């Protein structure tokens, strides 16, 4: 059957990807091929043959690998509990755990320092308990890097693996049980094998995130022995001011990431081919052993995840100013809500919030729609290439992307604030697209094709079938993609700084300005608003997703 309709659908996202991603990327990367004399492969060759590059790559891969491994390992028992049992706080936990994913890294660092630092909460508690003055040095070491990465990524692993596990039918396991296999045996030889694709997917996704991690590694790691490729790119571009060589390094990074992405796409395809059962595997909790396990895991998760987040929230209430009184203070919030006139940036908080929400909603709508179109087309065409294309932006850090953008900006002269808004929305769109695709693509693919065929035989055109039948079946995935894209947009700072040109203020930009002007209390207050906004939207989505799921089963 000709799928011209679906092809037309895919044109728009492909065009946008081309203009907003491929173009800036190639502008950025093409600098690597030119020096004073003209076209040359020397720079690129140099980067690819210097042992230093590979040393950097080695460490980058190492920390990404360990981060991914640890995250998945810790997420596994959680996924087991969440997939197999129904309990009241499940929605809450899942929403909470996705929060940290969205925070700008400076907040993550701050939160970590406040919670785990030498003068942080954990150590204060420890000192009180032991009565001594010794602190446990949790931060400023390699394990701190892994800790922070795990904080950010365990939710990803938890969500992905839980999703896959809860759709696995129990039949194979039950069959094995009747054959006399013990639970542990069953887990390792049956369950794990069937989960392996989703575990590997989670691992690879986390791996990619950690690959481009930057400030977390430097600050929390404690020293330059933990240097990654991103640091080297930044150094070359911003300090040494050698943008050509920086581009060459970016090419190297891009190729490595692309390879990882391709492997990921292939593996996640296999994950979807497993037969899915419509039913949710979860059963109510009966035994006290399980209840206990849930309690322990959830508590540990809460502490681990909420620790840094609550630290940020708490910090927003603490004033270090002798003028306004040290200690508990509502000052930052009073400035935000206008009950006290503000010094400087805080007055913008309201505008920033509105901007962030407006841009976030626009981005979420656009990203969801475009990811939908692209997913629909790629599932009809059964094309891996398209899926990889949609996930491309993941292979590039938002810093690199931002660098490419101002090259584009240089060619679009405009004083208009609307153009700035548009560009910010479009940049966020490109960043959010892979995540929306990651959510929608499997859902579209696992849809029952025969339902569409039935519609065709009843006289429905392709277009109408797509819009009136296929898309309504995707409601819960659409909601998820929407929320994720919203959250990503709301927390994005790098590309926004470049493109907003100071005209458009968003919450993260405000945060950045506040931190640069020593106002940590204000920064934490904005951070709290970020957290709250995201949390609310996430919970709505989780509820919507559950409800639709229950309706359909």
């Amino acid at each position, binding site marked *: *059957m000709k799928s011209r309709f679906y092809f037309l659908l895919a044109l728009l996202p492909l065009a946008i990807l081309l203009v907003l991603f491929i173009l800036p990327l190639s502008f950025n990367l093409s600098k690597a091929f030119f020096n004073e004399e003209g076209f040359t492969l020397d720079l690129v060759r140099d980067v690819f043959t210097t042992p230093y590059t590979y040393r950097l790559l080695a460490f980058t891969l190492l920390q990404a690998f360990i981060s991914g491994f640890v995250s998945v390992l810790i997420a596994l028992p959680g996924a087991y509990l969440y997939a197999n049992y129904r309990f009241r706080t499940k929605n809450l936990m899942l929403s909470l755990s996705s929060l940290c994913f969205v925070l700008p890294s400076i907040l993550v660092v701050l939160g970590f320092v406040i919670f785990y630092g030498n003068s942080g909460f954990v150590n204060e508690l420890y000192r009180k308990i032991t009565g001594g003055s010794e602190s446990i040095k949790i931060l400023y070491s390699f394990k701190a890097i892994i800790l922070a990465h795990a904080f950010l990524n365990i939710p990803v692993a938890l969500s992905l693996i839980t999703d896959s596990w809860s759709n696995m039918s129990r039949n194979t396991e039950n069959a094995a049980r009747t054959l006399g296999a013990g639970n542990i045996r069953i887990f390792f030889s049956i369950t794990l094998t069937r989960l392996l694709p989703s575990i590997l997917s989670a691992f690879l996704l986390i791996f990619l995130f950690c690959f481009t991690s930057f400030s977390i590694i430097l600050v929390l790691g404690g020293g330059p022995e933990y240097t990654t490729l991103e640091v080297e790119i930044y150094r070359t571009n911003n300090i040494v001011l050698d943008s050509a060589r920086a581009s060459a390094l970016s090419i190297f990074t891009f190729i490595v990431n692309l390879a990882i992405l391709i492997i990921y796409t292939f593996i996640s395809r296999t994950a979807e081919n497993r037969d899915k059962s419509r039913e949710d595997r979860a059963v109510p909790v009966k035994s006290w052993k399980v209840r206990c396990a849930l309690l322990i895991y959830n508590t540990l998760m809460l502490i681990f995840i909420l620790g840094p987040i609550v630290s940020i929230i708490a910090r927003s209430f603490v004033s270090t100013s002798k003028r306004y009184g040290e200690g508990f203070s509502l000052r930052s919030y009073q400035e935000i809500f206008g009950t006290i006139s503000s010094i400087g940036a805080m007055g913008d908080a309201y505008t920033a919030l509105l901007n962030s929400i407006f841009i976030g909603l626009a981005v979420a709508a656009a990203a969801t729609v475009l990811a939908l179109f692209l997913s629909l087309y790629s599932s009809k065409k059964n094309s891996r290439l398209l899926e990889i294309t949609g996930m491309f932006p993941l292979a590039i850090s938002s810093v690199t992307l931002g660098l490419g953008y101002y090259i584009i900006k240089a060619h679009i002269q405009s004083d208009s604030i609307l153009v700035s808004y548009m560009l910010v929305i479009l940049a966020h769109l490109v960043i959010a697209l892979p995540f929306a695709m990651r959510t929608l693509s499997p859902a579209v693919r696992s849809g*029952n094709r*025969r*339902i569409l*065929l*039935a*519609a*065709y*035989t*009843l*006289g*429905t*055109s392709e277009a*109408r079938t797509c819009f009136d*039948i296929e898309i*309504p*079946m995707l*409601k819960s995935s659409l909601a998820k993609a929407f929320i994720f894209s919203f959250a990503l947009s709301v927390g994005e700072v790098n590309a926004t700084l470049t493109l907003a040109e100071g005209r458009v203020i968003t919450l993260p930009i405000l945060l950045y300005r506040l931190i640069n002007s020593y106002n940590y209390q204000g920064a934490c207050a904005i951070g709290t608003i970020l957290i709250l906004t995201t949390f609310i939207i996430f919970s709505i989505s989780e509820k919507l997703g559950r409800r639709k799921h229950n*309706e*359909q*089963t």
Partner: protein
Amino acid sequence: MSKLELQKIQKDYPEFSLDLNLSVNEGEFLTIIGPSGSGKSTLLNIIAGLDSPAHGSILLDGRDITSTPPQKRGISMVFQDYALFPSMNVEKNIAWAMKIRKVKASERHSAAAQLLSLVNLSGYGKRKVTTLSGGEAQRVALARALSSDPSILLLDEPLSALDANLRRRLRDEVRRIHDSSPSLTTVYVTHDREEAFAISDRIAIIKDGRLEMADTPENIYRNPATLFCAYFTGEGTALSADLFNLSIPADTIFFRPEDVLVKEEPFFADSDSYIILDECEVISSEYLGRCYILGLNYKGHRILAESSVFPQKRHVSIYISKNRLLFFKDGVNIS
């Protein structure tokens, strides 16, 4: 002129190569049966336009519809897993095709109600499709398929997912519904031989993408075109022709269990009318309620025979009516 004609339909698939001609008469109920992976569903998809052949043409009322999109063929299909639209309730599912054709809402409503009563589901209109049982869902799927007033109705193993009792009841309903619409032509796919025999006007047997035989159930049973058809349509025994002195140049003879008389005591039989085999050892038996199907061993050959009683003796004699024998050479019936 037949209603539907498949002419030289050819396409290669991983498991088989489709290559056949088939005609379907107007108003008839044709069932396609065959082993799994033989191409039955594929054939249905091609008829519906959901798949296209590499070569060949499809004629509907003499018109070539090979390149007509499925939306325009007027051919409806019922799927094994019902494929109901999950986001709509029962009535909306059924009314969907009418909505596409811009039928007014009130007319849609009454038409849907009529269809619901046709499938014995009156009052189910507002039910959510996800709450239906298998049998109910399938009937809704049937009603929905009929709502577009199709000239041909295709059913792809619609009852396979249901339990045996439900299957028997529903297959009769399917036939009844077919009968109630005088101009409806139905093509039905199943792997259940009994089902096919029970409700079809004609049966087409497909093997490896090729049409073995298409005829009435009686003809297929009594006079199967190939050995495969013989085996596929019922129990039977095939023996090498060497065992017997025959004038016909066959390599295999075939007979049904019910054409074999089992006797424990000597029986006067005319050797012109019967093949008599003595010293058959009773190896196994299957009790069917109305009779036994005995598995006998004659000189190393296995023979199936029907008997109303279970033999007391271990060795029995069997009498096979010669005029019920089927002769095959190279798998083809030459009787």
